[in-house]
């Protein structure tokens, strides 16, 4: 007993049992050979015995602990109250109490010990001593905690992985991650920083304990730049690392700038893992699917230093990987959503465009129908025949006038051949023109036609080719009744013929009578009488020329003169003209000179060409000074190089008074003489050059003049050579 309970006070009552107990307790061997921790307490909880195992485990000697209660020094503070309760239960009869307690050894280390108790009571039932037998289970408990932690970590990882797979809400995933990590690792502050390229760092999610919310941590709630975590230098430091583990801020191997930041936040330990994700599809395709730095998953411990276990580091690493996957998913989804939005917008736009096009088409069709209706209305109101004929000579469109002309319902003409509608005789006459128009030439011709009533009429027919993409698709045909015009033309011809006859007949008598008088054969006139007769005669001659010129011009400009050109040797023409004008040249004392024209030929009607040449010569003679020479010349000209362009250029040159430059343009117009008195004084009619122009143009030639006022004029005209016609 003394050995077991040294200095134990002996109770006076129940001496027998006491002795028995002491006998047992005295067994020193029993106490110390057992591998268990054995502690004997008195009913106040004071230590009576403290065996060798206890001494080994705690570092305290029995002597040092005797008389002290365990809750005064051995137990960790949080278990002390509970321990007192247990003791109370033990002293009051609850003997089967099994519990675990945590002792703090002399060196400060903790020991978890599982206890079983035996109470020693006196015969009255009062508990005198309590024998506690314990086994240290620190390692078992640690292993169990580790296992539990592993299980919880795996469970968390599975849970988060599942969440990543199931949820597309990145924010929710990040928040779950930090909350769960914070709970699991028991850290003070777990957070995720996002560091987008070309943008500020920001807090994506965070979980923080109440404990960590001291004054230093109030910085965390601040925005950039007051929040040290949001400094670019903090994130940049980790950007280049795979993982950063700081167990304690003792400065060993920790960058000074990080130490400074962590100290501001009173952080004792830190675990930082980079989060990698694919480049955002919008951030350029050049990165492809290469993983880029996205941000950081960080755990801070502030209450004390902490040694991060490989398991925790691995967990953080895996979680960061899963966050990366979640980010990729979210970005992909966002990208997909963007694409869907973009495609939807495109589709909507296309739909709108299609609708607009459809509306436009409908409007166009409606406008076309309206326009077609109007066209039909207009064409039906026209007295002329309007039609569209295809390349197979079939009517594709025709107006109402066809019904009145051919006595066939006008709707029944479409699709029928031209030869079915018009008479064979008319069709044969039309055919060459129709075929010419179908080669792409616009054709206009006049034709005498027979209507259904048998009435003959003159028609002017125009065929206008419908050329699309360089090919003739058909022709627009316009046929108008020109019978009235033809009748008017005929009446005019008659009138001109009668007038010309009547005027000439009258002049013949006047001129003939005067000629007789002028010869003096009917008796001599006195000088004044002779002069008057000469004046009268001269003016009748002029009147005759005027009538002839007016009639010639009328005839030519009305297009009634049908040329019958022949091949004419140019030298013959020049000589004939000179011969015809010889008398006049003598009268005016003018020399006519011809420059030889070799063997040139022109294709012309000789009478007409002679008229043009003599008109020009007549002018040149009239306007040359006495004794001067008038030159006549013809030479070949080659305007293009093509044989068809070979022409002969005629010229008549004088050294007369010339033509002022302002008159050069109008000199070929009717009655446009240089001087208005020329007609009277020079016996001209003012029509000579107009006639020349008509003649030359009808020969497909060109006429022009070059003149220097006061020096003389040269009139030119060109005519085609035979080969070129």
């Amino acid at each position, binding site marked *: 007993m003394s050995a077991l309970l040294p200095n134990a006070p002996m109770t006076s009552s129940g001496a027998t049992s006491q002795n028995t107990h002491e006998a047992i307790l005295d067994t020193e061997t029993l106490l110390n050979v057992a591998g268990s921790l054995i502690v004997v307490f008195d009913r106040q909880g004071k230590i009576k015995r403290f065996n060798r195992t206890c001494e080994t485990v705690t570092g305290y000697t029995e002597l040092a602990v005797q008389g002290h209660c365990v809750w005064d020094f051995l137990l960790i503070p949080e278990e002390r109250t509970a321990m007192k309760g247990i003791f109370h239960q033990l002293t009051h009869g609850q003997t089967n109490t099994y519990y675990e307690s945590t002792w703090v050894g002399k060196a400060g280390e903790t020991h978890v010990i599982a206890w079983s108790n035996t109470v020693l009571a006196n015969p009255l039932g009062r508990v005198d001593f309590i024998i506690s037998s314990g086994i240290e289970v620190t390692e078992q408990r640690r292993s169990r905690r580790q296992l539990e932690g592993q299980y919880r970590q795996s469970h968390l990882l599975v849970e988060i992985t599942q969440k990543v797979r199931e949820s597309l809400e990145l924010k929710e995933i990040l928040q779950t991650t930090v909350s769960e990590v914070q709970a699991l690792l028991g850290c003070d502050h777990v957070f995720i920083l996002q560091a987008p390229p070309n943008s500020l760092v920001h807090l994506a999610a965070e979980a923080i304990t109440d404990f960590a919310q001291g004054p230093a941590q109030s910085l965390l709630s601040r925005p950039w730049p007051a929040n040290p975590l949001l400094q670019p230098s903090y994130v940049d430091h980790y950007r280049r690392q795979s993982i950063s583990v700081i167990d304690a801020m003792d400065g060993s191997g920790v960058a000074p700038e990080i130490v400074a930041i962590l100290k501001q936040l009173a952080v004792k330990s830190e675990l930082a893992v980079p989060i990698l994700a694919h480049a955002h599809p919008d951030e350029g395709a050049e990165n492809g699917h290469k993983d880029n730095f996205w941000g950081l998953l960080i755990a801070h411990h502030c209450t004390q230093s902490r040694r991060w276990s490989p398991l925790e580091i691995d967990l953080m690493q895996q979680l960061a990987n899963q966050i990366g996957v979640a980010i990729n998913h979210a970005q992909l989804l966002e990208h997909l959503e963007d694409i869907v939005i973009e495609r939807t917008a495109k589709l909507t736009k296309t739909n709108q465009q299609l609708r607009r096009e459809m509306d436009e088409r409908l409007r166009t069709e409606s406008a076309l129908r309206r326009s077609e209706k109007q066209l039909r209305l207009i064409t039906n109101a026209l007295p002329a025949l309007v039609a569209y004929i295809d390349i197979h000579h079939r009517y594709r469109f025709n107006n109402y006038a066809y019904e009145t002309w051919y006595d066939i319902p006008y709707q029944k003409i479409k699709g029928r051949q031209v030869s079915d509608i018009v008479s064979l005789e008319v069709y044969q006459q039309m055919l060459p023109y129709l075929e010419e128009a179908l080669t792409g030439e616009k054709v206009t011709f006049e034709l005498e036609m027979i209507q259904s009533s048998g009435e003959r009429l003159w028609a002017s027919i125009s065929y206008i080719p419908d050329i699309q993409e360089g090919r003739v698709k058909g022709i627009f045909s316009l046929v108008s009744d020109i019978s009235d015009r033809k009748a008017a033309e005929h009446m005019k011809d008659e009138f001109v013929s009668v007038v010309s006859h009547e005027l000439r007949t009258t002049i013949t008598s006047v001129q003939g009578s005067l000629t*007789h008088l002028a010869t003096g054969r009917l008796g001599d006139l006195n000088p004044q009488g002779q002069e008057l007769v000469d004046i009268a005669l001269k003016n009748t001659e002029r009147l005759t020329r005027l009538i002839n010129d007016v009639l010639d011009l009328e005839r030519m400009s009305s297009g009634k003169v049908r040329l019958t050109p022949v091949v004419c040797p140019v030298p013959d023409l020049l000589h004939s003209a000179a011969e015809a004008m010889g008398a006049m040249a003598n009268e005016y004392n003018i020399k006519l000179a011809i420059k030889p024209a070799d063997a040139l030929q022109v294709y012309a009607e000789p009478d007409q060409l002679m008229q043009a040449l003599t008109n020009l010569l007549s002018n040149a003679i009239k306007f040359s000074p006495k004794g001067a020479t008038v030159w006549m010349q013809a030479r070949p000209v080659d305007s293009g190089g093509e044989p068809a362009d070979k022409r002969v250029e005629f010229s008549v040159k004088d050294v007369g008074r010339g033509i002022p430059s302002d008159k050069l343009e109008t000199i070929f117009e009717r009655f446009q003489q240089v001087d208005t008195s020329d007609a009277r004084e020079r016996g001209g009619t003012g029509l000579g050059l107009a006639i020349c122009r008509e003649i030359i143009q009808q020969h497909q030639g060109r006429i022009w003049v070059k003149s220097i006022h006061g020096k003389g004029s040269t009139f030119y005209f060109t005519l085609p050579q035979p080969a070129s016609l």
Partner: protein
Amino acid sequence: MSKQILMIDDESDIQTVACMGLTMMGGWQVLTASSGKEGIAQAKAHALDAILLDVMMPDMDGVATLKALKADASTQAIPIIFLTAKSRAINRKELYALGAQGVIHKPFDPTTLASQISGFLGWKD
């Protein structure tokens, strides 16, 4: 040897002027008729060296008269020269084609009329 000419023209003034020229300048005998019909009758009744025939006349014009003269054996050999007030050149060819020996346009010079006719017919003065 004096020639005997018939002039058929409905214009008496022109007849007068022409006759004066032919008789005075050519020394010819000139018969006159005012219509084609009258002219044909004259032609049948006289031995003529030539007929000067106006183209445009009422009732029977110059062309019809020529055809009638050419159709009649007693008159078909008489040379016919047309006188015309129509435009120059236009129907000269048609008139020659009908068998005329010459075409003289109005107004003509009465003093040279005889020599013009002689020229057409190849007569020597």
